[in-house]
């Protein structure tokens, strides 16, 4: 279920990028995709009834109930990278706006190579 949701999110994100020409909206689409994939990663590591993978005395016995810590680590990294990319994307969006006075990629019209 959660995997389907994540897949849906990825597809929504893709659709957002595909259908929108507004820079900000496209960025949102990218973010939605990232969200989707992050959820997907989590869903791989997670199973019902799993506990946090922290080594404590009472959890030692039920090691099998840990959720996968690696997936969470990956998600953390992925979120950070996603943040970086979003930030950079916003910078580019600002630049586009500064240069063309619009956020609409369609209005820029491709811009001739100099």
């Amino acid at each position: 279920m959660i995997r389907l949701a994540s897949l849906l999110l990825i597809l929504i994100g893709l659709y957002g990028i595909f259908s929108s020409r507004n820079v900000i909206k496209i960025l949102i689409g990218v973010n939605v995709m990232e969200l989707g994939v992050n959820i997907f990663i989590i869903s791989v590591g997670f199973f019902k009834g799993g506990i946090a993978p922290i080594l404590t005395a009472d959890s030692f016995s039920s090691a099998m109930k840990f959720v996968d810590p690696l997936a969470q680590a990956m998600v953390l990294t992925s979120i950070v990278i996603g943040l970086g990319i979003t930030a950079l994307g916003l910078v580019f969006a600002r630049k586009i706006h500064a240069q063309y006075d619009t956020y609409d990629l369609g209005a820029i019209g491709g811009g001739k190579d100099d």
Partner: protein
Amino acid sequence: MNLTIILAVTVVLAVVSFFITRLNKKAGGFLTVIASLFAFVGLFLLKGSIGGEFSIFYFSFKITMVGWYFALIMVLAYSMTSFFNPFWMDKMMYPGSYNFMYLLSMAGTIGMFFAKDFITLFIFWETVVWSSTFIIQLGKSRKASYVYYVVSAIGSMATLFAIMMAYSVSGTFVISEAFAGLSGGAAIAVFFTFILSGLAKIGIFPFHVWLPAAHGNAPHTFSPVLSGGLVKMGAFIAFLSVTAFPAYEIFSGMFKVMGTPFPIYFLMALGAISIIVGTLMAIKQEDAKKLLAYSSVANGGYILIGILMLDQVGFAGGMMHLVNHAVASAAAFLAIAAVAYRTGTTKMSEMGGMIHRMPVTYIVYLVAIISMAGIPPMGGFVSKWLIFQGLADKGMLFLAAAAFFGSIGSFMYVFRPLSAVFLGQTFTRDLKKKEVGFFMMLPMLILTALSILAGVFPNTILRVITEIQASVGISPVTLAENTIVTVNGYLDAFRVFIVFGFGFTIAFVIFIVRRKSKKVELMDTYTSAEFIHTRELLHYSSKFYAPFERLYDKAPDTMKLYKKIAVKIGELGNLTESLFYGHKPEKTVFWVMITGIFVVIIGGVV
């Protein structure tokens, strides 16, 4: 003499000449003369070591009779033309690199003919191609150089494909063994792709487009090499494709036309077409060099037909035509170059009556065209005679018809520059022009002498060819002392020459005993009593064969085919650009999704 030394010296001198030219242009030009003459002499002395095998670096060489024969022709063209180099240095944009490329391409041709394996051959071949491409661009047209490269590339890429394909079967690149074990469809594919570079280089239809462009627009000092020399590289490939690739044996089970397997006959038919196309196009050219270029197309057809026959007579004719055409064509191009040196143009409508200013050049050109048109007593006659005999022997009617057409048509086109450039009225501009200097005259005279010698004593050359024929395992052409014997008759070129001399003497005696004629000025001609004072107006040179040209002026241009292909490739490029590239991510997303769906479907199917 050692081939290593020849190659090393020419390559080193090539580099040296590059730097010397930067110091002194003329000196660099003279260095090419020295280097190419050295190579010529060296190659001539190399005859003793035929059969030897050795390697330099990773290149492996084998000195064969046929390689020696080809290389000698090639270097002859190079060395004779090099005499013109010093006088053209000032007109070159890059004299240094011209000299460098000139010698480098010469070294390339030498190496190519002696290659033992196909990779060596190919490396030298391509070296010649690119170095000559960079020479041609210095001439009158950049486009010509481009066309030259593209057509050459079509050929050489196809040949590389064939070499590789043969290698995958036989596991070796050695020329004599590489084609072993081919059969069926692979054999046909290899045969046609392999010979493609030969066809492209000889200028066989539909690859002939580069000859008029490149010959006509190359620097005047390189056109003779192109026509007299580089074109013959293609003949070498054609030779290999019937000997090293034993086409007659491999295709022996195939459908045959007049005893010749169909693939070979097909190529011969292409040769015949190029004879016709070359002749017709040559007739209507307005530029002397382009005209000669088309004549090379036609003569290439003869060479191809001759070599592909691989029999006793026709093959000998084809091989001998190599020499004759090389000598004649180089001489003709040099003569035109000499005229261009004085007048600065090669357009036939802008010249006239140069015979009165440059008589020696005229004689050179005259002998050259007599040989080219195949009229006795010059060399071209003997080789064409042999080819005709070979064709008649096999009964190849249509090829023969094309050959006759080309032969008689050649009278028409070779006469045009003779009439337009050398005969007729001298233009006012050219009245004070002088003959070229002795240094430039020398190579032209040598080539003229060779042309005549080849016609009077053809057996000197034919003896070499008999050895080649023996080496590829066909019965050599029968030679008596001065006579060439074929099934259908024999030819004694020496006696023909003597009788011709006899007739000429009688005519001369009659002429000389009659009263001396009054010499009048050239403008004093019959003009229906009209006074014409403009020399240029009294010279008939442009649209010489207008009534005849009209009959085929709507014929399609082969160049259009290439242009069309180029346009198609460009359209594919346009499509690529517009489909996949842009500044919006949506295109990529779209394609990613399409591909993804496609992959999922594939996955479902699998």
